[in-house]
C-alpha cells in the first residue's frame, strides 16, 4: 500500500534554516567569485562559477557528513540535523551547477556529444596524475540526484525507512568519489599547500568524527545484560535513568530505550518509525517520548503516536526489584500497551 504525498510543512524553524543556508551559499559564492576575479582577471565567468559552485558543494557535503556524528556526540548540534535534507538538496543543486558549467566549458565546443566527451576525452585510467577525474564527479552527482529526488517523506514512507536509509547510505560512495575527483583533478593542477591542507583537514574531520561516534555507540552494543531465572534481564539501576530521559540498552543486538517519568518506568524500541532516529536520545515532552531528530512522538506506555498520528513502535515489559530495572527481552507488537513499573512500589 502506498502513502500519499503531503507537502512540506513550512514552519519558522524551517524558514530560518533555509534563509540562513541561502545567505551562506550566496555569500560564499559571491566572495569566491569576487576574489578570484581580482586575483585571476583573465579567467572566464564559467571557470569562476565552476570553482565556486564545486568548492561550495564539496564543503557542504563535508558539513552534511559531520552533522550525524556530531549529534551523537553532543545533542547541542541536533538543530542542524532537523533539516539536514535541505542541506543535501542544496549540495546537489550546487554540484549540478558545477557539472553543467564544467560540461559547457570543457566539452561543448568540440564536435562530440558533451556527455560522450566527458567519458572518452581522457582514458588514462592507469595514471593517478592524469586519471580521468571528471567521470568520478559525474557519478557522484548521479548519487546526489537520487538522494535529493527521494529526500521527501513521501519516498521515505513508500520505500520504508530501512530501504530509504540504505539508499541514502550511498552518500559515502558519493563522498569517496568526490574525494577522488578533487584529489585527482584540482589538486593535480593546483600546487597550493593551502588547498592540500584544507582537503586533509576536511577528510580528517569527517573520518575522526565518525570513528568517535562509532566508538561511543559500540559501548552500548557491547554491554551484556545479565539474565535472571524468570527470563528478565538486569537492565540498569533505576537511579541511573534521569527524570524524563532514557537509558539505552542493547538486547540481542537491538536497542531498547528505558524511560523514567513521573515515578514510572516504560521501555520501548529505540528506533523511531520516521527515519529510524534514536528515541532513547530524546526526552519526554508533554507526556510523550519525543524523537530528537524530527520530533515524532510516542506514548511511553503503548509506543503508539497520539492521534491523529498512526506510527507505532514495539514496547517491552519491565519490572523493578532491588533498585534495578528488569527487562523482558521479547518485544511486544508495536503499539501494545504495557502497564508501567511504578517506582514507589519498589
Amino acid at each position, binding site marked *: 500500500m502506498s502513502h500519499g504525498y503531503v507537502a512540506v510543512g513550512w514552519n519558522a524553524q524551517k524558514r530560518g534554516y533555509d534563509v540562513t543556508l541561502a545567505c551562506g551559499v550566496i555569500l560564499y559564492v559571491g566572495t569566491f567569485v569576487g576574489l578570484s576575479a581580482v586575483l*585571476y582577471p583573465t579567467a572566464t565567468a564559467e571557470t569562476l562559477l565552476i570553482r565556486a559552485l564545486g568548492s561550495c558543494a564539496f564543503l557542504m557535503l563535508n558539513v552534511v557528513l559531520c552533522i550525524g556524528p556530531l549529534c551523537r556526540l553532543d545533542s547541542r548540534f541536533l538543530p542542524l540535523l532537523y533539516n539536514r535534507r535541505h542541506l543535501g538538496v542544496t549540495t546537489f543543486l550546487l554540484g549540478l551547477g558545477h557539472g553543467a558549467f564544467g560540461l559547457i566549458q570543457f566539452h561543448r*565546443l568540440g564536435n562530440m556529444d558533451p556527455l560522450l566527451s566527458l567519458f572518452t576525452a*581522457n582514458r588514462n585510467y592507469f595514471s593517478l596524475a592524469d586519471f580521468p577525474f571528471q567521470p568520478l564527479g559525474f557519478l557522484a552527482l548521479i548519487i546526489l540526484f537520487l538522494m535529493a529526488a527521494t529526500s521527501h517523506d513521501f519516498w521515505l514512507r513508500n520505500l520504508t525507512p530501512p530501504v530509504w536509509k540504505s539508499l541514502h547510505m550511498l552518500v559515502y560512495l558519493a563522498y569517496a568519489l568526490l574525494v577522488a575527483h578533487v*584529489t585527482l583533478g584540482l589538486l593535480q*593542477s593546483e600546487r597550493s599547500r593551502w588547498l592540500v591542507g584544507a582537503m586533509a583537514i576536511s577528510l580528517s574531520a569527517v573520518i575522526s568524527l*565518525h570513528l568517535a561516534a562509532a566508538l561511543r555507540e559500540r559501548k552500548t552494543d557491547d554491554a551484556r545484560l545479565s539474565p535472571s531465572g524468570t527470563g528478565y534481564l538486569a537492565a540498569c539501576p533505576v537511579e541511573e535513568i534521569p527524570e524524563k530521559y532514557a537509558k539505552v540498552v542493547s538486547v540481542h543486538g537491538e536497542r531498547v530505550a528505558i524511560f523514567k517519568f513521573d515515578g514510572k518506568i516504560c521501555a520501548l524500541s529505540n528506533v523511531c518509525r520516521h527515519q529510524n532516529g534514536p528515541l532513547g536520545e530524546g526526552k519526554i515532552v508533554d507526556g510523550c517520548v519525543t524523537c530528537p531528530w524530527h520530533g515524532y512522538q510516542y506514548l511511553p506506555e503503548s509506543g503508539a503516536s497520539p492521534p491523529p498520528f498512526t506510527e507505532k513502535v514495539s514496547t517491552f515489559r519491565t519490572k523493578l526489584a532491588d533498585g534495578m530495572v528488569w527487562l523482558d527481552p521479547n518485544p511486544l507488537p508495536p503499539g501494545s500497551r504495557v502497564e508501567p513499573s511504578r517506582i514507589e512500589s519498589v
Partner: protein
Amino acid sequence: MIQPLRTVHRQVFLLLTLALPLLFVAGIRARHWVLTPKPESGQRALAAPKTRKELAATAARGEGRP
C-alpha cells in the same frame, strides 16, 4: 530491526577510513613535479584558466579533443 544496517554502516565507514587517506596521499605523491596539462580539461596548469576566445580557437583547431 536496524542492527544489520548499523553494522553495514560501520563496515563501510571502516573501509573508507582506510581507503580515502591512502587515495589522498597516493594522489598527492603522484603529482607531476613539472606540471603538464590535464588531457581532459584542456587547462594549463599553474596558469590562469583559458578565456572563452582561447577555448573557441582551440576547438576550431581540433586540439584537446579525441
